[in-house]
């Protein structure tokens, strides 16, 4: 499947990695729910590092949508909230 890291581009990630990524993602979600900014950052970094480690870059001209989209490096919890609220933050 294709995963996008915002600000970095798309990566092919093997389907077998889904479970592992979901676990990290659940941890990330929990920090957002708890409003726990200090744990949010390290969990996001861990998730991004994992995706980068197992992913292969998608060829630049590919026009395929991503199955999963991750906030970019340095994103704050506030940024993620805005992304999820979709209140005009995503241009287009």
């Amino acid at each position: 499947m294709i995963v996008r890291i915002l600000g970095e581009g798309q990566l092919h990630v093997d389907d077998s990695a889904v479970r592992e990524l979901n676990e990290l993602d659940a941890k990330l979600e929990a920090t957002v729910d708890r409003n726990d900014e200090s744990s949010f950052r390290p969990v996001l970094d861990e998730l991004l590092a994992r995706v980068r480690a197992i992913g292969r870059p998608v060829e630049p001209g590919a026009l395929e949508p991503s199955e999963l989209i991750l906030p970019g490096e340095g994103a704050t919890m506030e940024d993620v909230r805005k992304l999820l609220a979709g209140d005009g933050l995503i241009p287009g």
Partner: protein
Amino acid sequence: MSVMKRVSMMFRAKTNKVLDRMEDPRETLDYSYQTQLELLQKVRRGVADVATSRKRVELQMNQLQQSSDKLDRQARDALSVGREDLARDALTRKSGLQSQLSELNTQYTTLQGEEERLTGASQRLQAKVESFRTKKETIKATYTAAEAQTRINEAFTGISEEMGDVGLAIQRAEDKTEQMKARAGALDELMASGAIDDMVSGPRDDIQLELDRMGASHDVDAELARMKGELAQGSAPRQIESGDGAAPGTAAAREARAGEDGQATQAAPPAQPQAGDGT
């Protein structure tokens, strides 16, 4: 629901909204391509804007660094003439500049990061726009409006996501540069108003004035000493050609003689005077 799933759904929802508005799918292609070209221009302008901001910060850093170097020199000069109070003054001002400099350095790094990010975004978008253009022509040439629908949706969805991503990157870079511009503007004003100059060197560069004054009085002392020496020899005939005509003349003569003896000049001086004194 998971964060990454939800974010991708938000992107998808946005795309679908645009697709729903389109009546003729092939019209979608041209309209979208137009938007892509506009966004590409926008992101390129964004790269240029960030670069301009970065250069401005760089210029300010250079100016402050020069001022800081000057204060450093002044502190050394002051110390060399025994004015620790002036040296302390100069170093205090220097440390004020240093904290400004380190703040500018942070800004510089941030802008550099944004510039790299945006350049990358621009290149990625460029690649997708190229490939969209090819696909668009193929679709228009090969399929009827009804047949084209699915393919158009695919291509459109793929590029919309990239556009959304690039749009976010531009927004982010704009926010950062706006903040930096405001700060850089404030600093430029401060520099233009002379406030930074005052910080560097006081209202009329008081440290330099003091050092110059001391330097001048040092020169005057030296000249006075020279004149006194000349006057002391006033009765002696003014036959010495070199003009600096004081006692050192004899020392020079002794050195010249040592040279003629063919001895190594380094070895000569310690031996020579003792031998001379002995006889």
